[in-house]
């Protein structure tokens, strides 16, 4: 939640006086002011410093999949309030209005450079991408679909972790999603996990970490416990690069970091290398 508020504040700063709202955007990293149109053409990567802006799930679909190929799944699954948690229903309906999504993940079928795949794309603009019952169920059903169709799964993670308001049910979604992906894996099928900023807690400690190939975007914050929690526990400042994707790569926890300008092509190539099939030994 903290990361989100920090981000939106800076975005507001970007609306300089005298310009119609949204026409220009200031980079939160280097403060470079650029035309929003230019930024979008550059896949929301700062034209000066390469900062990767957050993307909505819908923007990911447009950026990543072949044009018009995406068919959304399971949008009829709606969040209920299993613990009768105060204000939860209201918070969900606000998030729905703000994002136009039914929950924090968009799942469906599509093609990537002609290859049929199942995708799940999390959106951190929806309650910080937190995982409750619906997110867990949608991802699980998407993986089931991939098993049925015998196609690869690609998941874009962006999440603060498990959703507090659904308590233990959120925690159990970690098991449900990981177990389903294990089934997919046992069928000899490919799962590529793409971790984007931020990927934490119950999401990073479940499906996001069990890819055959684990990829991250540059400078994305990825970890189990949040930086603030660790700093409070240890009472010491952590290095600047702590939990950034480059830090994870250096510690052997990622297969690769792909710049957004290459991500689509590299992943498409990986998918092709896997769907072509291995050598047939006699």
């Amino acid at each position, binding site marked *: 939640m903290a990361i989100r508020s920090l981000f939106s504040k800076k975005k507001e700063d970007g609306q300089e006086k005298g310009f119609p709202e949204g026409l220009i955007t200031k980079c939160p990293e280097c403060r470079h002011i650029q035309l929003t149109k230019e930024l979008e053409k550059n896949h929301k990567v700062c034209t000066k410093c390469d900062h990767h802006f957050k993307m909505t799930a819908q923007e990911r679909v447009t950026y990543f999949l072949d044009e018009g190929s995406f068919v959304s799944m399971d949008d009829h699954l709606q969040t209920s309030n299993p613990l009768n948690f105060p204000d939860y229903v209201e918070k969900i309906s606000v998030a729905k209005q703000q994002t136009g999504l039914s929950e924090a993940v968009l799942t469906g079928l599509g093609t990537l450079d002609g290859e049929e795949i199942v995708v799940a794309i999390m959106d951190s603009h929806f309650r910080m991408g937190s995982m409750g019952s619906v997110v867990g169920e949608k991802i699980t059903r998407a993986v089931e679909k991939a098993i049925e169709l015998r196609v690869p799964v690609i998941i874009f993670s962006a999440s603060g972790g498990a959703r507090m308001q659904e308590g233990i049910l959120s925690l159990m*979604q970690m098991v*449900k999603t*990981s177990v389903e992906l294990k089934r997919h894996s046992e069928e000899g099928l490919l799962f590529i996990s793409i971790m984007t900023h931020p990927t934490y807690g119950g999401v990073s*400690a*479940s499906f996001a*970490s069990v890819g055959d190939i684990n990829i991250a975007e540059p400078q994305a914050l990825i970890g189990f416990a949040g930086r603030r929690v*660790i700093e409070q526990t240890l009472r010491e400042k952590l290095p600047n690069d702590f939990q950034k994707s480059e830090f994870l790569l250096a510690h052997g926890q990622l297969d690769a970091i792909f710049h957004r300008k290459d991500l689509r092509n590299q992943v498409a190539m990986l998918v092709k290398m896997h769907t072509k099939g291995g050598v047939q030994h006699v």
Partner: protein
Amino acid sequence: MSKNLAFEEPVVQLREKIDELKTIATEADVDMTSEIEKLETRLSQLEQSIYANMKPWDRVQVARHPERPTTLQYIEAMCENFIELHGDRTFGDDAAILGGIALFEEQPVTIVGHQRGKSTKENIRRNFGMPHPEGYRKALRLMKQAEKFKRPIICFIDTKGAYPGKAAEERGPSEAIARTLSEMAILTVPVISIVIGEGGSGGAIALGVANRVFMLENSTYSVISPEGAASILWRDGSLGKQAAEAMRITAPDLKELDVIDGIIPEITGGAHRNVAKQASYIKECISVTLKALNSLNGEQLIEDRYEKFRKIGQYTEV
């Protein structure tokens, strides 16, 4: 009892009064039998009403009681010839998770569990039962070993959570937990998990992908500690009591939510009041459950575990 909890105060006071009266009776040599009897009846009534109406926060206190029995105490009370096995074969040996082989009613079993310390010194060595990644990797190694030799696996869950530290993050707690979850899913031997104290977050569930999951009556199992939830939701960690109620973290709550299979009753006042008797309750539960699971073959066990977790979650379809 040295460490009494706030909600038990009335019971403690009454018990002290009775003891006082008994002392006076012997010293002054007067017959107070009927008075004492009356008070003792009242005491048992009071105990009944207090311990039968424990609030979530009361249970949190019992679950965190410094004298609450640990994994090792239960193993020693339940099993013969426990042999501890150490290390993840890659980085180190995490004392916050303990594992090994034992004889349970003459059957070899593998037991893995979070291990808190009983003293400050031991707690420091065991990191208060909060594992680093190598702890989960050791746990998984021992589970795979159990599978090879067709031994059932018993897991004891008792942790505030995986340790949130710099060194831990460098070694990938997320991957260690996630891998344990997905590998436990395909174990071809029976797995039973029992929450004996606090079951906190991803660090707890990493030992929880079992065919049957039980909780001790006063244990808790939650997505995050009540204080952690309060600090995230209301930005005030001191609201743990309210969070404990809102989050539904007690054994009866989880049974109602269909997340666990059963509740193991506790000694009145908490497991710490009689470790041997508490261990016998746990032993009985494991014994019955193992007999039931032993009739399933490997494939059926995997399917059974899958079905169990596949259906967890609440939502509407419109």
